[in-house]
């Protein structure tokens, strides 16, 4: 006998793997299109890190991390909302799975999908710009913990939403602005003061900036600060998600 959570994790992995065309390949193609368009249009006009890094190379880690985060969110949120709406969530609620096991399986599956998509984006962008990895440990840390945080946010969204458009609202009005306004496509030092200040309270900015530090050894803020924000965010969201699961909020009536 082993804990039921390993089966739930395996099921969640198999779920996205079975539709990998949609869950892995499609976001890789989207990121590639972003790279081609932005690099072509802005490549010669944008200076980042005082010209020490080319714009296309700068863009690659941003796009990789954006894909990691968006897909980690999509995995847990879409799996949960589909199970809730089709009613098959009952098969997970009936067995003796504790809230922590439920949490662990969904978040780890999100991390796995986020990393799989991130790796895919990194590989297809290599021919266009091959940024050196100055600190692979930073890259791995920010990608893994960042995906975990978005996986938790996906769980919260999946628990809260009762229909697909509520989830779409969460995705379009929270996740998308957070990721697009996080310095994926630019350095926040190039922003006007208001947007610069706003970016500094966006936790996704720290995830992207820290991740980028792992490639170039240069970043807008200290990687230690980014790591601290990321860990703090993961503790807060982790605690909140577990609390919702313990209470059975919108899951057990």
């Amino acid at each position: 006998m082993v804990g039921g959570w390993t089966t739930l994790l395996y099921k969640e992995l198999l779920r996205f793997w079975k539709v990998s065309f949609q869950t892995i390949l499609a976001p890789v193609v989207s990121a590639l299109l972003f790279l081609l368009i932005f690099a072509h249009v802005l490549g010669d006009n944008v200076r980042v890190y005082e010209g020490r890094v080319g714009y296309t190379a700068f863009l690659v880690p941003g796009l990789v991390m954006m894909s990691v985060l968006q897909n980690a969110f999509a995995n847990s949120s879409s799996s949960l909302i589909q199970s809730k709406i089709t009613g098959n969530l009952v098969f997970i609620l009936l067995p003796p799975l504790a809230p922590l096991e439920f949490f662990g399986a969904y978040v780890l599956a999100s991390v796995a999908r986020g990393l799989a998509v991130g790796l895919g984006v990194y590989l297809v962008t290599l021919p266009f710009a091959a940024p050196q990895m100055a600190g692979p440990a930073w890259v791995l840390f920010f990608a893994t913990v960042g995906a975990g945080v978005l996986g938790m946010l996906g769980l919260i969204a999946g628990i809260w939403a009762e229909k697909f458009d509520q989830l779409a609202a969460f995705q379009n009005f929270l996740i998308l602005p957070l990721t697009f306004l996080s310095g994926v496509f630019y350095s926040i030092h190039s922003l006007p003061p208001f947007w610069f200040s706003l970016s500094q309270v966006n936790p996704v900015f720290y995830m992207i900036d820290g991740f980028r530090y792992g490639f170039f050894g240069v970043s807008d803020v200290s990687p230690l600060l980014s790591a601290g924000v990321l860990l703090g965010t993961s503790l807060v969201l982790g605690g909140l998600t577990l609390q919702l699961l313990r209470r059975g909020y919108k899951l057990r009536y």
Partner: protein
Amino acid sequence: MTAAVAIRGLEKSFGTLKALNSVDLEVQPGEFFGLLGPNGAGKTTLISVLAGLARADRGSVTILGHDVVSGFRDARRKLGVVPQELVFDPFFTVRETLRFQSGYFGITKNSAWIEELLVSLDLVDKADTNMRALSGGMKRRVLVAQALVHKPPVIVLDEPTAGVDVELRQTLWAFIRKLNVAGHTVILTTHYLEEAQALCGRIAMLKQGRIVALDTMPRLLDRFRALSAHLRAPALPEQWANQASAHRGDTWTLPLKDYGDLERLLTDCRLSNTPLTDLRLEATDLEDVFLRIMEAH
């Protein structure tokens, strides 16, 4: 002996609607127990609390001595639930579905029992078919297999034969009966009262969240025991014709006190040379009892 299911002072409300109102109930190990009631009586809510899908406002529920809240792990291991809705995960095949369900209960090496379930429920040919491609009846069989995959000693079936054809119904009941004979406690909710009458040893009837009747099947039937004869004859001896509760043309309905009454009726007809062209007897069944009890509350 520890009760298979013990429910004490259970209350559950949804806003102002009291779905369960001071429900007390014990089901003993090995019983085949029926939970009956009209739509909205609280049957599914009661099952949901039992299964941990809903939380009671007050009261307690134990499964073989394990509280469904404080001892949820043990309680859920002892319980298998066949849900009322035809739900399934469209990503997986029948075999994958059963393996996952087994794994959720921490049982990863369960192939022999899964194969046995596939055979018993006539699912072998569909084992590697995606759930989406199955008919409604087949999906219902998979739901039953999922509920049994961890070999629970207590099985709850929430209207398992709703919309199911006769053949599957027979297969299903034969299998569930076999499990009951092997010692499993079975709790059944159904709107097919003839099924409940044929299968259940004891019955609880719910109305508006309250238990309005709780007894063994024979005692419940005895409460309103009655016999009536439906017969066709051109005329009846006067004393019987006067007792008829319905009469149209040559069709008569006569309430009888017992089978002795029937014997007297037939003797009187023979002595008066009254030819009977048809005779059908009707005894009180669970449906009559159910309707009488529901009317009274």
